[in-house]
């Protein structure tokens, strides 16, 4: 009787219901795959009968672990060296992303820098582009005689030959990934900075604290959770990024875990790949633990009490034109310039020849010529481009709706249940998918859902499976956004509503959501964009009927049919921007979360 009452009381709180539901479904969708992944490191797969001598498919074996960890030079080249490279790349790119994104977020939200609306929108372009297209732009620009062919634009214009370390390998990989994920830092840190109550700063100003001190003692501690979240997100993302190191590293044989993972999953030794995936997850978990430890250390920062209305901009004074100019120059270099190269490259016929006579509309509206790219018709006449594009839009929209809603609710429930074990568990579960390297995650879902499980029919080849994996994978974006939004929101606001007898649904839709609208909406928009440009997650699960635009794009890039690739890339960017604009017009929110305005 007593327990029944306790249960009844427990479930009277909406956040408890949400927590329980999330716990059950996330355990099934993330923990089961994890066990299946670990199991995969111990069994012989069909393609391994070539290397595991005398074994039969599905035999249990320690072969993979021995080979990956304990085989001297071979293990070193296969695993340890790529692991070390991965850690370096992830660390460097996280630093670049946080520094660049954080600086821009601060400049846009807290200073009187000029051109804010423009910079604010353009800064996120690199995130909209699929990451490897930035790598292609880098190659277009900085390629040198090492790989031959037409000289890069930079060399063509300045006559300076770029150094090999600058053109290929760890440096460009880190920079490109850093630039690609800088908008993350910008959105997450900017969101907090913008909503931060300026009273704190003003109080410090009144107390005659120096600007440096205010940043160090007030701004930084408040945005620290966001910086840590960003670090965690960027580090994990770059760790599982495959295409950028593949394009920039191959010429100098720079190996990271994912390039090995990709080769092994599609090659002779998927077992090795599964081990590498496990290692990546463990690294992610370690960072997550540090993050948790830090967040647990400080109890809470309620920094938003209602909507902060008085934001005081720091006057840049004499530095204003300099800083504004520099900021403008940087966004132009990292966001506009690549776009321009995509436009130009999609119109040229013979590679490397930028003369007017070499321009052609062949790759946009041409019927297809046998002597270039095997008779593939131009993008705008290409049936498969349209189908794939539509699939991508559909998929991204559905995923965004699911993720944004579930994530927002998760954020609410996690924060309201704070301090309870269940809340902590769900918090970690909701974040966990982010630590699963996309490609391995796809591989696991493939083997999990290729056969019927209980009452679940086989999902392979269905649109639903793509939605499912996308939703699970991107839940962390939305749950983080939701948590960050809710953490800043004083509980008193909802308590006041409860006292007034306002039902839960209304409290959410009329009070909480509107106050932190921009944060919650970023929980819808981030998954949408990420989904539009995602490749690795879907590549194994795609069937001809539901192929998405990025698979097509990557295929063109891989084949070296760069004109089509560049054109499609432009289409993706234009589509995302238009949708962003539309949402902006309808709701006032935007990807850059209207940081500028």
């Amino acid at each position: 009787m007593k327990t029944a009452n306790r249960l009844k009381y427990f479930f009277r709180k909406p956040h408890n219901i949400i927590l329980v539901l999330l716990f059950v479904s996330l355990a099934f969708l993330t923990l089961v795959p994890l066990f299946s992944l670990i199991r995969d490191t111990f069994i012989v797969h069909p393609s391994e009968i070539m290397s595991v001598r005398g074994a039969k498919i599905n035999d249990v074996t320690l072969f993979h672990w021995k080979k990956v960890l304990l085989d001297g030079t071979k293990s070193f080249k296969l695993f340890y060296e790529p692991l070390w490279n991965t850690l370096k790349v992830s660390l460097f790119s996280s630093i670049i992303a946080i520094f660049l994104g954080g600086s821009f977020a601060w400049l846009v939200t807290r200073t009187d820098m000029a051109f804010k609306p423009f910079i604010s929108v353009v800064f996120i372009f690199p995130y909209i582009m699929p990451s490897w297209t930035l790598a292609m732009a880098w190659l277009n620009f900085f390629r040198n005689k090492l790989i031959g062919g037409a000289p890069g634009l930079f060399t063509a214009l300045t006559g300076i030959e770029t150094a090999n370390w600058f053109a290929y390998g760890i440096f460009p990989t880190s920079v490109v990934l850093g630039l690609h994920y800088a908008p993350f830092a910008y959105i997450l840190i900017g969101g907090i900075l913008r909503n931060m109550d300026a009273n704190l700063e003003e109080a410090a100003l009144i107390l005659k604290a120096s600007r440096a001190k205010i940043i160090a003692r007030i701004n930084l501690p408040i945005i620290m959770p966001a910086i840590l979240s960003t670090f965690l997100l960027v580090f994990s993302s770059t760790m599982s990024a495959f295409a950028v190191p593949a394009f920039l590293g191959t010429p100098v044989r720079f190996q990271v875990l994912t390039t090995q993972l990709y080769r092994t999953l599609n090659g002779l030794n998927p077992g090795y790949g599964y081990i590498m995936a496990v290692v990546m997850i463990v690294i992610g978990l370690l960072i997550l633990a540090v993050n948790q430890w830090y967040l647990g250390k400080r109890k809470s920062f309620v920094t938003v009490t209602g909507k902060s209305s008085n934001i005081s901009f720091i006057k840049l004074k004499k530095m204003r034109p300099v800083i504004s100019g520099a900021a403008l120059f940087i966004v132009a270099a990292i966001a506009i310039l690549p776009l321009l190269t995509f436009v130009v490259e999609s119109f040229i016929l013979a590679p490397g020849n930028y003369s007017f006579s070499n321009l052609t509309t062949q790759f946009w509206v041409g019927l297809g010529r046998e002597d270039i790219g095997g008779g593939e018709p131009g993008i705008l006449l290409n049936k498969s481009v349209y189908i794939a594009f539509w699939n991508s839009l559909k998929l991204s929209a559905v995923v965004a709706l699911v993720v944004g809603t579930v994530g927002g609710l998760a954020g609410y429930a996690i924060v309201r249940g704070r301090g309870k074990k269940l809340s902590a568990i769900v918090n970690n579960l909701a974040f966990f998918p982010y630590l699963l390297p996309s490609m391995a995650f796809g591989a696991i879902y493939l083997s999990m859902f290729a056969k019927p499980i209980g009452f679940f029919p086989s999902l392979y080849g269905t649109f639903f499976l793509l939605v499912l994996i996308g939703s699970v994978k991107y839940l962390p974006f939305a749950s983080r956004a939701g948590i960050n939004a809710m953490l800043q929101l004083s509980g008193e606001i909802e308590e006041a509503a409860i006292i007034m007898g306002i039902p839960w649904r209304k409290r959410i839709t009329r009070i909480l959501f509107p106050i932190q609208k921009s944060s919650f909406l970023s929980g819808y928009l981030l998954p949408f964009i990420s989904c539009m440009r995602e490749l690795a997650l879907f590549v194994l699960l795609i069937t001809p009927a539901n192929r998405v635009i990025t698979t097509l794009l990557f295929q063109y890039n891989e084949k070296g049919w760069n004109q089509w690739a560049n054109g499609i890339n432009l289409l993706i960017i234009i589509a995302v921007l238009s949708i962003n604009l539309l949402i902006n017009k309808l709701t006032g929110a935007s990807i850059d979360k209207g940081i500028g305005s």
Partner: protein
Amino acid sequence: MKKGRMLALALLLFVSMVQVFAAPSQELIDAAKKEGKVVVYSITSRIANAAKAFETKYGIKVEAYNLKDGELIEKVTREVGGNISGADFVICQDSGRVYGQLIATGYLVNFVPDSLKNVIPAQYQNPLVFQFINKVFIFNSEKTQTPVIKNVWELTEPKWKGLVQFKDPKLEGVNANFLTMLTSPEWSAKLAKAYEDLYGKKLVLTTKNAGYEWIKRFFQNGLILGNSDTTISENIGIKGQKAQTLGLFVYSKTRYDAAKNLALLPMPDVQPFSGFMYPAFLQMTKNAKNKNAAKLFIEYLLTEEGFAPWSKDVGSYSSNPTIKIDPDDKPVSYWAPRLVFEDPAFLFENRADVEEFVNTLSN
């Protein structure tokens, strides 16, 4: 005179009979049309053009999906293994894996159209070969039309450091197969002999055999690995480059010469090999849903009409010897003694070792 005429007449009769034979049976066409659709996974992108032509001819819808060799093998393994309907038939490559992982397991099923049983040489019938593809040493021919190397060991000399390109064998199984074949007794003996012919002394080994030795020195001589043969063909072929470069890539890429302003020529007489040649197989899947449409399409692809997207360029050789090759190209019989071929059994046994070896070679 009369005899000659008789012979010509007989030949004509024979040809027309073959042609009658060559047509698929009406039964098959009807059954295929009833299915109305066929799904194919293919390692060659030109399948799209063949698909279009096939759709127009028979009104049967084709879903053609272009995949990389390893991807295709993985997909078929999962789909057929899990009894999920995917491709009805495939055009696949990478002999070692295709035999070991797909044919030995019964995932792929051989089908030779009746009309072609007497046309296609018996050794290409099981598994049925669709075409042969060759990757050869190709050089930038802007400054000179004469081949720039005569012996593959030259590529291990400082002179060629950083000037040779090859697609990363991790990214394409057939490239790994080629390297694996070099370590076979046959090719390592030939490589050892080529070394002696060139330098007049015996090769001193630091590895298992001359094959491994060449691979090691080839890779460690600043070999540039690429992501795609198309890109490599541009990197090598673009006019106006200072350095003389060369690459080992798909011969058919030279078809882009005119449109892309490239200067590329093959070197068919390098000792002991000028590159390699590998088969692409035409196989039905065990759980094919549209069996008849698949059969009809397979038959179509082996006719002159169906092979048209490939035959109009160099570097594609149908298993059907009656299909003419590009006039600028030479037949398989010309290439055979010059190129390294795949031996599925040897590959199955040794590919993993060679891959592992290659992975330990740094610049």
